[in-house]
């Protein structure tokens, strides 16, 4: 498996560290009445789809950027790679 880093080009899987689901959204209000439930869901629950998955990888042995990758978890085919800061607000 190779990931096409926007800075470094196509690099081997071994250069990257995997974080997980890119759609993690940190709940914005810790004082909301359902804050505990929302924090629990954000930290622990996952879609875990078979098929297209948006995920975050860290280019540890390269430029050390965070990249957001769209990958098919059934076939490992990578469909898109962007720098994470360009995609997430």
């Amino acid at each position, binding site marked *: 498996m190779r990931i096409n880093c926007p800075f470094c080009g196509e690099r081997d899987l071994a250069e990257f560290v995997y974080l997980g689901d890119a759609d993690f959204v940190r709940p914005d209000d810790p004082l909301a009445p359902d804050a505990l439930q929302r924090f*629990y869901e954000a930290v622990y629950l996952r879609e875990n789809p078979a098929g297209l998955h948006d995920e975050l990888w860290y280019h540890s042995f390269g430029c050390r950027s965070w990249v957001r990758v769209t990958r098919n978890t059934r*076939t*490992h085919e990578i469909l898109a790679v962007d720098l994470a800061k360009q995609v997430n607000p």
Partner: protein
Amino acid sequence: MSESIRNTRSTDRPARYSIFSLMRHALFGHRGWGHAWRNPEPQPAYDVIIIGGGGHGLSTAYYLAKMHGITRVAVIEKSYIGSGNAGRNTTIIRSNYLQPGNLPFYELSLKLWEGLEQDLNYNAMVSQRGILNLCHSDAQRDFFARRGNAMRMHGVDAELLDAAAVRRMLPFLDFDGARFPIYGGLLQPRAGTARHDAVVWGYARAASNLGVDIIQNCEVTGFITEAGRITGVQTTRGEIRAAKVGMAVAGNTSLVAAMADLRLPIESHLLQAFVSEAIKPFLPNVVTFGASHLYISQSDKGSLVFGGDIDGYNSYAQRGNLPRVEHVAEDGMALIPCLGRIRVLRSWAGLMDMSMDGSPIIDHTPRAGLYLNAGWCIGGFKATPASGYCFAHLIARDEPHEVARAYRLNRFATGHLINERGEGAQPNLH
């Protein structure tokens, strides 16, 4: 469904295996053995449906019938039984855990392993050859001593060996390398291996004998919900109803749970495993490398069976990539230098349900009528007997078994995590 190897003398109930039945069948050229389990058409309804015909699903069905007298049970398997992780693991059985939430459970499992072949009347090649976890630093030895003491406090066998004792056991380990010096190891003598396929077949045969219907090539495509309860499943072979549905589908857990609108604290990952060419008896027990994560044993056929960590990214592919292959090979060479001359025959991968604390879930779900057995990470095979035993208990009595009381789904919300590795909410680290 035609059965091409049908003998007119065989009945639905297979013969009890014994030296006498072996001799009797030998007289007739072994053509009289009937099928080991029935292959019935699914009934419209059962008392319990178990989704997943792997080790855990089949053992659950067996113990439902045997321990609780619930025999109107269907095990529904999308492919052939044991085609998932039950047929892909590295066969290790052990109960050398640290956490109090884990130790009684895995020890129950080991005790069930010890009586399993007599109970099932099936040769599962349970081999209590011992497992030795090597340690490579003072700190690691201290940690292993702590784990060994935790085991002994729970009545589980454990011995702490020094380097000299390890050298007497396994002289071919690398004792000269300065990078990973061998300080000693934690030994569990009663641990060992079991033949994974035979475990599936043994439970299938015993369960089928007690009346459980094993329905293969039948994939669950949805749940039937009536008045807010789950009352059955939709499958590729029609609708099947039951008041209680239990799911034991390992790495496919999130997919099946999504059919009931449930999101779970699980990520599916791949774990590679490897088998070498067969060689003469060389490795007498199971050995694990403390400086990394390699575990290795030798099968009765002579092959070395080994593996390491998961690749580390979400996957349903059941095949892995080369960085992990390289890593496992490096670990093997660091541990046992003479491995360099042995050829690897094949590799494959399983589909692991990695949980958010590395420990399993055996619990009700928020959906009435649906029971969950999942989160086994990379340690499900050794748990096969106790998982089925406890899941059956939960389904039959709607109460957790004593040794599985901590395996709650809500523990992530309440903070009662059971974390052997001490890692956080990062499934690929467990």
